[in-house]
């Protein structure tokens, strides 16, 4: 059943499903409901790391080096532990600067240098093209092997087939078309491809399931589990050797260098950068991926060794390439469906890698290689074009086609020279060259553009000489002499034993020398001079990204003048006029303006425009383009340093300011409370004035009225005269009493009152007061109970003042008691260090609300404006002042309807008194 057309149609159906997913993902993204906004999808899409090199190649590597395939996956697992610091920082920087590729990242960091971006692009393309050709080779080989089913036939040398019959050519063309459809459907200012990411996540799932399926089939279907396979392997010396690594320094060394290499690759392979950084929807997703992605890696590796051992047991003569065991084992067992599934799994591994990698590379080629050249090429008159977005898209499409074509050419030319895994490692070593410039760039402000260029150039040159050229030589393009004899016959220049360094495998050897050259040149050249203005400002923005993202720090380093009507058309030329207007309008709204015309072309807006443009054509070109329409006044290095100093000072000031404002708020609250209190007092004073004037007017009115009668009517009889004069005297007394009380209060309040403190007996005081008020009791026919404890100690107080208090309390009790039925009780008791006096009545009682206010000055129970007041409202406040003066306490306990009990205590010693004196003096 595995005819060519079946395989082809299943493959196309699979690609159709992929496209459907991508289409759906893009639609959902446009509708604002992202399907990839999910940490699990993010982690799955990161598994684009596992290409056909993993899918087919791991088994091949395991068949020759045993456990040696593992460092490629252990490295990323280790690196994931550092993502929390490193990857998060890179993502934050990239989002803040709208960075769209690794070339853009490096060139932005080192002063938005176009030459640096170009260099990175060239290294990436040269390093990655063999890797892409590897995918073509894997798909084409697996297709040919499957086509020969049920026979197991290894594909002939690639170059042997005529061009038009070569399946790899068609695969390359299909992949190119597919990638163009996926990756360049429209020009996005952020260069994100949600649909593509959804498809990649799906592909990761497919390849994992396919590999697990074949692993389970081999381990448990062909053999009886892990134990069985390893037991059989024990019997074959060649297989037994695979279970350990050679116990030598060199093998541990290469183990370490492969781990290190893969740690760098997981960060800096263009496809990993694209997925992990550029396509990242939300940096929170990174957290889950830190453990989910390594989990994916361990799952896809569990069955590698069993499949390798199983394959070697099955094909002991070596007629079948170990790279194909994943496919050939199901085939030889006549599992057609499984074999087809494995083929699809391999296809998904290849397409995932090719799609993301070519999109990433095409962005770099377009933004950092082609556009800078085109924009400088005056003859093209590009600056007169109104809309260049079509140009960007078509450059990218051509770049995708060109990269795949390059991959195919390499595939035809290199042929079978290398096993799959070899090519992958060469690519890894190429992208590892980015590490010093990036790590240095995000943690060290001292790196300069020349330093980065020198480091990258030196590392790339050493890589080319020690890895790429020897691989060309092994492919037969170059004479093998220079490997064996060294360049020009100089033994020290042997590319794989440079300067006589022998005993390392070629990857470790190349990694050591290229990293030495790269880091050495980067640091040494960077230290030759101080970073210039742009490098300092960009360096600060990158290294201190966690401090700068929230504020408007980005535009601090720009000074000059610009016009909105210059900026808008510029952005419109690259993004399309419509989208540019939308973006500017959104910016205007964010800044509280309703239209673009109201926008001020200040430093913030210029930065916004440049960042927007950077998303489309890369940071370096964006800077050049924006600089062409605005007039920038260059800042001196000293000014930049000043700004940085100012920034830290400003931070300190703002902290102080916050502190001050908190203090101020507290003070304001206090003041407000005091003000409320004052207003209340003022209101109470007004109330009192009206009460007092009312009180004063009443006796005055009657005094005046009776005086006038006496004056105008001399014939009034004697009895009436006497009566009238008696009223006048009584009213005058009332006036005097009122005025005395007001004066008394004022004296006590101001501390001018006279106190005649002596030892007094409260017993006497109470009896005297009761005697003085007995006529009041008699008038209303109230009963009075006395319960005075004997032997109460004497207290230090002013006798007259205490009598005043007692009289006030007693007369209050009388005032509020009903005639005939009223009962008043006076109690005296001693307890602890105080004596206590209670005056209890059975009047109407005092509501809780009133209990709080009756001790305040000028307050009376009841409405003073309507009911006739029962007193001056000063009696209780004066009493309380007196008691408190002697260190005692005066309070009331009551509930409405239950009568009221006024109580006071006086301390037995004089401490309270002296304390009080001190307080009043203040």
């Amino acid at each position: 059943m595995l005819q060519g057309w079946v395989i082809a149609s299943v493959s196309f159906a699979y690609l159709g499903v992929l496209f459907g997913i991508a289409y759906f993902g893009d639609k959902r993204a446009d509708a604002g409901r992202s399907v990839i906004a999910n940490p699990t999808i993010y982690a799955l899409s990161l598994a684009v790391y596992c290409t056909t090199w993993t899918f087919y190649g791991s088994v091949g590597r395991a068949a020759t080096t045993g456990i040696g395939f593992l460092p490629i996956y252990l490295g990323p697992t280790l690196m994931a532990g550092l993502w929390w610091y490193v990857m998060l920082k890179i993502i934050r920087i990239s989002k803040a600067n709208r960075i769209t590729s690794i070339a853009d990242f490096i060139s932005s960091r080192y002063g938005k240098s176009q030459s640096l971006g170009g260099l990175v692009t060239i290294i990436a393309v040269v390093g990655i093209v063999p890797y892409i050709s590897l995918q073509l080779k894997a798909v084409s080989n697996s297709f040919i092997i499957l086509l020969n089913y049920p026979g197991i036939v290894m594909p002939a040398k690639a170059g042997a087939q005529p061009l038009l019959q070569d399946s790899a050519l068609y695969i390359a063309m299909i992949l190119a078309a597919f990638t163009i459809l996926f990756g360049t459907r429209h020009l996005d200012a952020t260069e994100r491809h949600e649909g593509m990411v959804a498809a990649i996540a799906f592909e990761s799932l497919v390849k994992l399931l396919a590999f697990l399926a074949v692993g389970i089939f081999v381990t448990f279907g062909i053999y009886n589990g892990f134990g069985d396979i390893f037991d059989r392997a024990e019997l074959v010396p060649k297989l037994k050797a695979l279970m350990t690594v050679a116990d030598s320094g060199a093998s541990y060394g290469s183990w370490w260098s492969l781990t290190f290499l893969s740690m760098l690759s997981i960060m800096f392979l263009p496809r990993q950068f694209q997925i992990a950084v550029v396509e990242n929807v939300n940096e929170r997703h990174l957290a889950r991926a830190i453990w989910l992605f390594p989990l994916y890696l361990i799952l896809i590796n569990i069955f590698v060794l069993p499949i390798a051992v199983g394959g070697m047991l099955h094909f002991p003569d070596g007629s079948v390439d170990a790279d194909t065991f994943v496919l050939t084992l199901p085939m030889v067992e006549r599992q057609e469906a499984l074999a087809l599934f494995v083929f699809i799994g391999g296809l998904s591994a290849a397409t995932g890698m090719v799609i993301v990698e070519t999109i990433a590379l095409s962005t770099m080629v377009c933004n950092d290689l082609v556009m800078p050249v085109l924009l400088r090429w005056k003859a093209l008159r590009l600056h007169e074009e109104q809309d260049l977005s079509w140009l960007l898209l078509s450059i990218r499409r051509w770049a995708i086609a060109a990269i795949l074509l390059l991959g195919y050419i390499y595939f035809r030319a290199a042929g079978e020279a290398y096993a799959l895994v070899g090519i992958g490692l060469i690519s890894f070593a190429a992208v590892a060259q980015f590490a010093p410039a990036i790590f240095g760039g995000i943690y060290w402000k001292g790196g300069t553009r020349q330093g980065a260029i020198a480091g990258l150039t030196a590392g790339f040159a050493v890589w080319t000489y020690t890895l790429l050229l020897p691989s060309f030589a092994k492919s037969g393009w170059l004479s093998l002499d220079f490997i064996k004899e060294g360049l020009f016959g100089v033994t020290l220049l042997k590319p794989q034993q440079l300067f006589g360094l022998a005993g390392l495998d070629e990857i470790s050897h190349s990694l050591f020398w290229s990293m030495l050259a790269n880091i050495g040149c980067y640091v040494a050249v960077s230290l030759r001079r101080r970073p210039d203005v742009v490098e300092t400002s960009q360096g600060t923005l990158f290294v201190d990204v966690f401090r700068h993202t929230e504020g408007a720090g980005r535009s601090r380093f720009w000074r000059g003048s610009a016009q909105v009507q210059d900026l808008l058309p510029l952005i419109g030329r690259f993004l399309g006029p419509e989208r540019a207007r939308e973006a500017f309008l959104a910016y205007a709204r964010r800044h509280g303006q309703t239209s673009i015309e109201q926008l001020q072309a200040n430093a913030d807006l210029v930065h916004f425009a440049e960042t927007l443009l950077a998303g489309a054509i890369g940071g370096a070109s964006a800077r050049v383009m924006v600089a062409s329409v605005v007039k920038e006044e260059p800042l001196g290095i000293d000014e930049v340093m000043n700004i940085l100093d100012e920034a830290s000072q400003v931070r300190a000031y703002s902290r102080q300011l916050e502190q001050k404002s908190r203090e101020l708020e507290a003070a304001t609250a206090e003041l407000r409370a005091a003000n409320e209190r004052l207003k209340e007092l003022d209101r109470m004073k007004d109330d009192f004035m009206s009460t007092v004037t009312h009180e004063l007017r009443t006796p005055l009115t009657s005094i005046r009225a009776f005086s006038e009668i006496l004056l105008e009517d001399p014939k009034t009889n004697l009895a009436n005269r006497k009566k009238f004069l008696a009223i006048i005297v009584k009213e005058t007394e009332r006036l005097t009493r009122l005025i005395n009380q007001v004066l008394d209060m004022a004296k006590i309040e101001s501390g001018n009152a006279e106190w005649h403190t002596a030892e007094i007996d409260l017993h006497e005081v109470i009896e005297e007061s009761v005697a003085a008020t007995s006529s009041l009791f008699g008038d209303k026919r109230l009963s009075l109970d006395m319960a005075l404890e004997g032997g109460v100690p004497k207290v230090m107080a002013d006798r007259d003042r205490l009598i005043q208090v007692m009289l006030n309390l007693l007369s209050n009790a009388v005032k509020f008691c009903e005639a005939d039925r009223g009962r008043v009780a006076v109690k005296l008791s001693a307890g602890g260090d105080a004596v206590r006096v209670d005056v209890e009545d059975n009047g109407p009682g005092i509501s809780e609300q009133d209990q709080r206010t009756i001790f305040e000055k000028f307050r009376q129970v009841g409405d003073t404006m309507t009911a006739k007041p029962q007193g001056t409202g000063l009696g209780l406040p004066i009493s309380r002042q007196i008691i408190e003066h002697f260190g005692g306490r005066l309070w009331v306990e009551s509930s409405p309807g239950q009568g009221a009990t006024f109580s006071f205590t006086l301390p037995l010693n004089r401490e309270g008194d002296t304390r009080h004196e001190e307080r009043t003096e203040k």
Partner: protein
Amino acid sequence: MNRSIITGQRLAAIFLLGCVLFNYPLIALFNKPGEIVDIPLLYFYLFGAWALLIGLMALAIERRKE
């Protein structure tokens, strides 16, 4: 993302632990013939250590308070 300092330090510690577990001399201890539950010693050790690291990372990430 909440840049919790303690989570970052835990992950860095796991990274360092992994560097030790996956390198000479520790792997040399297990680099000899022999089997544990029918699985070659080195193979068993590497996958065990690997799973341990992933478990620790999952623990550090999922149990942090955001």
